[in-house]
């Protein structure tokens, strides 16, 4: 990775200081066009027991960009996200995050195995928010947030605790620091989970249907936190069924169908000029239905 990109990452993610990444403006975004992408996925294929889930998918995400992955169930969007985190091993193809190849690779016909330590190092820079929250039930909200900094970054408790409390406050749960996950609502658990990821100061946040397991009235509070994060310039790859949110927050929407990317672009452009029937069916189901009945 070039020094320019490193500088950019530092600027946007501020791994050294305790401040939040500064907000980005449209001008900043234009500057990013020249920077090497934070995520590069090339010719990615993944099949489960011979059943293809991803079929030759390529995608790049620039630092500071918010990309929403949409598509019906089984279209491969979650698999793609999980491949970026290497929670799924790709069948073939390549994933590069922040300039580092993720997973085993073959060079000159020889397999180079990625070590546990290297993978952990890469994942330290990637935050992931799961559909089912996956908070650690034996730890309080605050302990959930501090576990990574304490054990992975080997920070001292009194170093990390103020930051962890600040994060809890940021997601609106300062009063729940001592609560165990089972005593929190789904929305509260998911907000703690987001704070837990942020505690590692990730360069990149992955959201895997973060609101799909929530009762409808709890969705908004989680989206609000995600919206805030986006406004602060966090690079985000978001798998979601919340179309209004995707249109509103994403710089780019990527439409997936049957394991391939069938359409992508800025939300407004996509709605105005969809190149694939799925695009409109997902984003404007009513209009798509009207079009179908008219033709």
């Amino acid at each position: 990775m070039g020094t320019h990109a490193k500088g950019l990452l530092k600027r946007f993610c501020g791994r050294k200081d305790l401040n939040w990444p500064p907000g980005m403006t449209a001008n900043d975004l234009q500057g990013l066009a020249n920077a090497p992408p934070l995520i590069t996925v090339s010719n990615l294929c993944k099949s489960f027991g011979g059943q293809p889930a991803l079929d030759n998918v390529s995608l790049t995400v620039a630092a500071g960009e918010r990309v929403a992955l949409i598509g019906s169930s089984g279209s491969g969007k979650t698999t793609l996200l999980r491949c970026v985190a290497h929670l799924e091993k790709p069948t073939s193809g390549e994933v590069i995050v922040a300039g580092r190849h993720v997973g085993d690779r073959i060079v000159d016909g020889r397999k180079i195995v990625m070590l546990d330590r290297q993978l952990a190092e890469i994942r330290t820079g990637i935050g992931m928010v799961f559909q089912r929250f996956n908070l650690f039930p034996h730890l309080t909200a605050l302990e959930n947030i501090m576990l990574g900094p304490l054990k992975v970054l080997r920070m001292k408790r009194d170093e990390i605790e103020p930051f962890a409390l600040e994060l809890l406050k940021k997601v609106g749960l300062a009063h729940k620091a001592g609560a165990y996950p089972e005593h929190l609502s789904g929305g509260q658990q998911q907000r703690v989970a987001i704070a837990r990821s942020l505690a590692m100061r990730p360069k990149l946040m992955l959201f895997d249907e973060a609101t799909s397991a929530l009762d409808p009235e709890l969705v908004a509070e989680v989206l609000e936190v995600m919206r805030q994060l986006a406004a602060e310039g966090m690079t985000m790859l978001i798998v979601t069924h919340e179309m209004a949110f995707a249109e509103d927050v994403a710089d780019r929407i990527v439409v997936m169908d049957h394991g391939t990317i069938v359409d992508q672009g800025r939300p407004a452009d996509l709605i105005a000029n969809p190149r694939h029937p799925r695009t409109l069916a997902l984003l404007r189901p009513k209009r798509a239905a009207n079009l179908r009945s008219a033709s």
Partner: protein
Amino acid sequence: MIQLLGDWLPQLLQGVLWTLRLMVLSFALAAVLALPIALARLSANGMLRLLAHLYVELVRGMPSLTLLFLIYFGLPNLGITLRAIDAAVIGLGLNGAAYVSEIYRAGILAIDSGQREAAQMIGMRHRQVLRFVILPQAVRVVLAPLGNFAIALLKDTSVASLISAPEMMLQARDLTSEYFMPLQIYVAVGVMYLLMALPLASLVRFMESRLGAGLPKEKAV
């Protein structure tokens, strides 16, 4: 009868002490040995998996008495001679490790895979995931079956009498050959085992209810 009981009691209590000692030591050995076996069975390394699997199947398929005889009567042929009580601890420990490793394995597998994934995504390495996230949760799952194993082990220590370890059953056999009152003596022995097992069972129930009821509502920060 009361008089007789008084005569037997010192020797029976001697037996109780040895039985408890045998139980505690072989339980500790089994509980410690079982963890690497369970982890090997869950390892990504096929060789480790196979070895651990072989151990578990081999030991489980063999009466613990066979293992005890092998160690006590067989090992001297290789120049290793052990006291009966040590042979019993090792035999019951090795035997128990096979069972306890299965308990551990089930406990680890009972933890939702999302826990592992979440831990990996905050940058934890395998060892850390296991130590800070999986095992603390698996402990709760494992406690009840582990308690049941301990009770079974308490009773199984009686096989050690067959290699003349001085535990309760051996003392009872001694007494019967002296007093010719097997009915009374073995009833007394049975009651003694019961008196050891019952508190153990209620301890298991207590721990189960403590952990089953969930965590304290909130922890002061």
